[in-house]
């Protein structure tokens, strides 16, 4: 029997079974009448942690310190135990209506009509073409996601000498995966003046991996075919170029949200992060369509993504009760050195954002930053933080700053004190 022509009618459809989608499913399944359905295009639910085979997962959301595959398994089990239904190998291909999508899976082509749709499609690293790195098209060029799929899911091999482009958290994750298959990381490059990952890595990490980090450095060419033989790197300040021998290039970080379905639904998109614009309740501008996880803040750690999923539940329940946001929202935009801020829509009576944090991306390293909110060019709130704003990872700012907003006034910006 084929399921062609079948229409599934869950109350809530969650697209994407990564940490945020699975956590949302676990929270919502006991709280809504009708079904909570999660669609996942991969053959196993769990998202990126499935192939991040190293510890560091579950800190903020589970109070654990576990590896990615185990973290993914717990999220799956929790969602299932809560009564959510997870379908894998199920790709949402397009919209069939305002809250209706077409899905392809081995069982057939089906339509899903839901009362609420939560987009939890995550983010990916920009691959080589999107970074416009010229040169030869040799074998041996991967993003971290590709690399970790090869190593941890397919138990495959890569080369012996790698250059990692990027020196942020995910870059060290790539270094760990390379070490696992005895591929030496000969160099990490970053365009920033500092290696950007957590302190844990910047000192001991370098010793542990025996890896040099070239700061203020960009890759200007990849050399070698059919296999990579080296990369040409440039010191951004001096313009000096040299060639580093390697047979493997890992392109890390430089995240782009998987926003295709959001854009196809005409959801408003942040022009810089390319993420769907949401309010503090994680609503998009389309009624009944929510967005959560690293698609909104590409990318924070998996636990923070999962906590979006926890936070969205009560907002979805409220929507299903018939509550709708009141009043026109104010926009919140980021001033340099910040690239983007999420959420970017503010309403007077909205709840606090997940974890009572605004999430930002900084282009420069600022120790002890004094963050300010401005309205009409006037500073309305300020707060000095004891943690730095650093490029390469999400900068988190307490949302208590928002309490100073004059709701009758104009747009709000967030930046640094002059």
């Amino acid at each position: 029997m084929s399921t062609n022509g079948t229409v599934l009618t869950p109350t809530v459809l969650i697209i994407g079974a990564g940490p945020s989608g699975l956590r949302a499913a676990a929270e919502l399944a006991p709280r809504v009448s009708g079904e909570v359905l999660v669609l996942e295009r991969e053959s196993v639910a769990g998202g990126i942690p499935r192939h991040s085979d190293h510890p560091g997962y579950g800190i903020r959301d589970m109070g654990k310190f576990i590896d990615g595959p185990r973290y993914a398994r717990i999220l799956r089990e929790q969602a299932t135990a809560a009564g959510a239904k997870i379908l894998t190998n199920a790709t949402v291909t397009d919209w069939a209506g305002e809250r209706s999508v077409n899905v392809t899976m081995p069982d057939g082509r089906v339509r899903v009509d839901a009362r609420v749709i939560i987009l939890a499609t995550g983010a990916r690293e920009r691959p080589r073409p999107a970074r416009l790195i010229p040169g030869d098209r040799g074998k041996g060029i991967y993003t971290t996601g590709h690399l970790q799929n090869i190593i941890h899911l397919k138990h495959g091999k890569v080369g012996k000498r790698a250059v990692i482009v990027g020196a942020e958290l995910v870059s060290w994750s790539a270094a760990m995966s390379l070490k696992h298959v005895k591929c030496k990381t000969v160099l990490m490059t970053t365009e920033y003046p500092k290696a950007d990952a957590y302190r844990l890595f910047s000192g001991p990490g370098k010793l542990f991996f025996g890896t040099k980090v070239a700061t203020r450095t960009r890759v200007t060419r990849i050399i070698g075919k059919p296999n990579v033989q080296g990369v040409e790197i440039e010191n951004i300040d001096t313009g000096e170029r040299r060639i580093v021998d390697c047979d493997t290039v890992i392109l890390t970080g430089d995240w782009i949200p998987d926003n295709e379905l959001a854009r196809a639904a005409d959801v408003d998109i942040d022009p810089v992060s390319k993420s769907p614009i949401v309010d503090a309740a994680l609503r998009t501008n389309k009624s009944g369509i929510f967005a959560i996880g690293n698609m909104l803040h590409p990318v924070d750690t998996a636990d923070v993504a999962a906590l979006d999923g926890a936070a969205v539940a009560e907002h979805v329940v409220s929507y299903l009760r018939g509550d709708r946001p009141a009043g026109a929202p104010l926009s919140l935009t980021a001033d340099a050195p910040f690239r983007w801020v999420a959420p970017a829509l503010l309403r007077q009576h909205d709840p606090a954002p997940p974890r009572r944090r605004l999430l930002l991306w900084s282009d420069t390293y600022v120790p002890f930053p004094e963050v300010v909110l401005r309205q009409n060019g006037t500073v309305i709130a300020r707060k000095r933080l004891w943690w730095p704003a650093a490029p390469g990872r999400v900068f988190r700012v307490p949302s208590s700053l928002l309490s100073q907003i004059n709701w009758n006034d104009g747009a709000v910006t967030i930046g640094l004190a002059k």
Partner: protein
Amino acid sequence: MSNTQNKTYDVAVIGAGIVGSAIARKLAGYRLSVALLDAREDVGDGTSKANTAILHTGFDAKPGTLESKMVREGYHLLSEYAKQTGIPVEHTGAILVAWDDEQRDALPGLKEKAEQNGYAKTEIIDAAEIYRLLPHLGEGALAGLSVPDESIICTWTTNLALATEAVQRGTELLLRRRVASIDRVDGVTNLYTSIDRISARWVINAAGLGGDTIDQLFGYDRIHLTPRRGELLVYDKQARPLVDKIVLPVPTALGKGVLVSPTIYGNVMLGPTAEDLKDRTDTGTSESGFAFLRGKGEKIMPKLLEEEVTATYAGLRAASDYPDYLIEVDTEQQYVIAGGIRSTGLTSGIAVAEYVDELLRASGAIQLVERDNLPEPPHMPNIGEAFLRPYQDAARIAEDPAYGKIVCFCERVTAGEIRDTFSSPIPPCTLDGLRRRTRAQNGRCQGFFCGAEVNELLESRGKSVNVPADPNANVASVEVTK
């Protein structure tokens, strides 16, 4: 060196690009034994794979040339062949945009030239009409020439269809054979390749960028080819709503210039550059090429540059010092050259094959007797975005769940399609070959999600296709994950 094929073919065609494949297909329709040789691991892996994939009307050819005639005829022949075999074609039309007075003044001449080339449907249009048709075009367009029949086509499927039909008609496809030298003994030409000796009574040179080298082996010195590198930027499918026509520049003395075009796969392409090189294998991309294209794109369609780049390509086309196609028969050496065929060869390939056939027939030097019971033309898997693809085809998925298992998420390539390539008459042997047959890994993530899976399918030659045993297991049960 041994003649591993241990036979003497009636015809050996050198080059399994579009032109060579079309010629082999044509000649294999006669009672002739035909070998189709290529230096590479796959058909269509040279100049044929990396062109701008436009099915040309020939409106801007040089009137009176053989090229003009071949492109004009080829347009109709390939359009018809595409219908028979399922090669995806979209009749988007093209608009030449004039950005300055000089270009605007050139439009009437181009219209007249189109008419001399037998194409009467061009029209000069004003700026208002241009922006009506191309609302996202950059500022400053003055006027344009519309060419309603210029179309986009899948160059990969075209090449593969022609080569597949050649094989189905009995052609032996001999890959990985670079012809290094020849000799001719008793009316038979021996081609000494990188791995063996191939013997044939007639040799057809359709070697693309290597055409002049082969020609010199036969003692000629009449054509010299320069590899002209063309770099292209392919933008994300999300850019596709910006443009649904081919946007052409007005040709100048420096060449055809940079165009913006929808692709048959649902992307938008910006390019090509034109840079003459010495190295016939240098298909690397360059910093200067990217900068040049982005500069052009900024003017032609600034909104395009806000989108992500999905792929960058560099292709080599054969720039020739011979002013036209060079298609001639040497009856004494039983040798034919089809050379100097530039990027228009995609459109003209089938017409070139017909022309070679005519020349051979006229020479009277070879017996061309039609075979009975020719197989039907192949029906090619559709990889065009505008037509029904397996992942959308409910009936097909119901018959075989492998067509419902999407492996490459960005391009929506299913396990079934990947598996099928390995049982096709010309299976892929490299990742690039698989990409050209299915689009797998050609999308925006470039392997972030599917790279490892696609590679496993390639290494197992499609045998690692893994779909749930019970096709209803997913929907019926609550939990299918492990």
